[in-house]
């Protein structure tokens, strides 16, 4: 059986599609504020987590956002994104906790991978931080349209004391009645923008005038080609063997660990141009530009099971 939920009424629209998505996300933020003691928003400075913070501000205005922010920092960041992150936190007067993956490598709790990618290494610092700060609800910017294991994710999703996701034991999620009950030591991941598409995110960013890090817009950058993606040189490494740096007009569709997040060739310097580009694209931002999701058919499911975002 297939059920469809058209979100734009044909006649006399009470709420347009973006209004409906905004109202749904605000409802989810308020449910968590009402039922949990120590919620936190995972915040990387990327477009989805910036959108989450914007929605949280709207959910509680004129009062401030009643949540802290947590950034699991791989150390493989673009400086523009870290600047952006710090300015936003300062402007909103929020509390930001940063878990540096490097600290876990330095004291031996984690070991650097041979390929230099630190994305999979974020899981342990994330879970350690959740335990240390006793966070009981953890907001993520995951969307169901990104990837097919995420398409099966609940809006409010239980993690056991080990941070694990068991897709076979998910609670049924009915109407908009979210069941966030959990035992001490367990926590709940919450995805307020589950039902947004990449295009919805961009249209809403445009409508609301949300500021983003400049790397989302086309710029000149030295990049090299690997596995069909344009990667930039950085502390995480650079071209190997026959790979050569070339200067291209590129932009990023996601911001993640620099070692595995590719740029796309683009001349889109405005939101209008980005929206036109996303509309024409057949691949989601993860499928197109994230090497970590292309490792295997179930790469995301496997990482999610271990407690990844």
């Amino acid at each position, binding site marked *: 059986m297939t059920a*469809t939920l*058209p979100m734009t009424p044909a006649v006399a629209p009470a709420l347009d599609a973006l209004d409906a998505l905004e109202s749904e996300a605000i409802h989810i933020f308020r449910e968590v504020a009402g039922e949990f003691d120590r919620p936190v928003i995972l915040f990387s400075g990327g477009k989805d987590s910036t959108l989450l913070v914007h929605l949280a501000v709207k959910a509680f205005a004129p009062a401030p956002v009643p949540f802290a922010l947590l950034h699991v920092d791989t150390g493989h960041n673009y400086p523009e994104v870290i600047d952006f992150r710090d300015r936003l936190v300062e402007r909103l007067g929020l509390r930001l906790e940063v878990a540096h993956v490097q600290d876990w490598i330095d004291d031996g709790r984690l070991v650097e991978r041979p390929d230099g990618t630190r994305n999979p290494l974020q899981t342990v610092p994330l879970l350690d931080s959740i335990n240390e700060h006793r966070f009981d609800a953890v907001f993520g910017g995951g969307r169901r349209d990104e990837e097919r294991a995420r398409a099966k994710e609940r809006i409010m999703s239980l993690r056991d004391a080990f941070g694990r996701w068991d897709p076979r034991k998910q609670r049924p999620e009915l109407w908009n009645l979210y069941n966030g009950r959990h035992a001490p030591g367990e926590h709940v991941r919450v995805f307020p923008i589950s039902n947004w598409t990449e295009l919805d995110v961009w249209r809403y960013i445009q409508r609301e005038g949300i500021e983003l890090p400049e790397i989302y817009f086309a710029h000149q950058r030295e990049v090299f080609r690997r596995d069909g993606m344009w990667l930039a040189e950085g502390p995480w490494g650079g071209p190997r063997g026959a790979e050569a740096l070339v200067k291209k007009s590129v932009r990023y569709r996601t911001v993640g660990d620099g070692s595995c997040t590719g740029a796309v060739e683009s001349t889109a310097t405005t939101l209008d141009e980005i929206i036109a580009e996303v509309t024409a694209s057949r691949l989601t931002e993860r499928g197109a530009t994230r090497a970590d999701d292309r490792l295997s058919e179930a790469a995301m499911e496997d990482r999610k099971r271990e407690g990844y975002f």
Partner: protein
Amino acid sequence: MQRASVDKGLATPDLSLLVDGLRAEREQGITIDVAYRYFGTPTREFVLADTPGHVQYTRNTVTGASTAELAVLLVDARNGVVEQTRRHAAVLALLRVPRLVLAINKIDLVDYDEAVLAAIAKDFAGLARSLGFADDAVVTIPVSALVGDNVVERSEHTPWYEGPTLLGHLESVPVTGPEVAAPFRMPVQYVIRPRGGADARSADAARGDLHDYRGYAGQVASGTVAPGDEVVVLPGGTRTTVAAVETADGPLDAATAGRSVTVLLADDIDISRGDVLASAAEPPRLTDELDTTLCWLAEKPLRPGARLLLKHGTRTTPVIVGAVGERLSLDSDVPTWEPAPEQLGINDIAHASLRTADPLPVDDYADIRATGSFLLIDPPTGNTLAAGLVGTPLAVH
């Protein structure tokens, strides 16, 4: 998908790879869980909840149906209406999905025979009527999902078919929910007080005009709310007037079902999360005795006398299960209510009487979904055990 299909040694794309997102699903070749997919056309955006058909996953059908504005039931033209069709149709009727499409698939395999399709459509119309669907709530469309007949483009093989294509219908069918025309209801989620404790450091809170700000945050569950409306706060029963309806973008003239707002009231009343704001002229009934219909979703059986938790709107309250009533049988051609079983097992749908610790402001599910629905929760594990509906929304004729 094409890459994965080739990896699996398949010559043609395996379409199930699109929705079978979990390792176990691909290993077993079945869909276990609801998969959400998103697509848009120039006229509408769609969220598609693909729910599995197997009987042991009825709980996922219930989940998908609980938020659907329209359901597409797929039947195979070679088999017609089967047990699974009847079960799904009954769940859709119970959950009050307002509109149905019967998509008769694989018409290419019955040589586009009009008579075969007419027979299936007639069969299903009888079933839909017995479940209480109005005739105009059901549309039958002959399609071939593989070849594309009548999905997006009209098929040249079905000149006898005069109705819309599947996509044409989805793009044009009215979807304004019954919630909009119903009386106003809004469960209070959170009280917004900028001057409250730790919030006082906020720049906004320093403004004198927010000193006494006390806003009730919630999503309008049904009807419309506007400044000047008389409302009642339940379960307390105090009446007051709406002073303002706000969002972060400013005040609104009115807000309809689905909109998240902050409501300010004329009088200073003690209101907290769990309370419901409702139309004073047409309030819900306040009761601690509920006649309900339960969709049992858990492996753990339900026995009369069980002590559980009930979540209704934004309130969770202890509940004792009284008698278990008739159980819906979907084994015969027409769904029937059969005598009460001793206990309920997974995927059972049955009537049950409940007694709650706190009185709840409820409506019949058939009238207002939001205040007529609830969850039953297992106190030790916190797991969701049942989807509950106030009243008996499925009367079999």
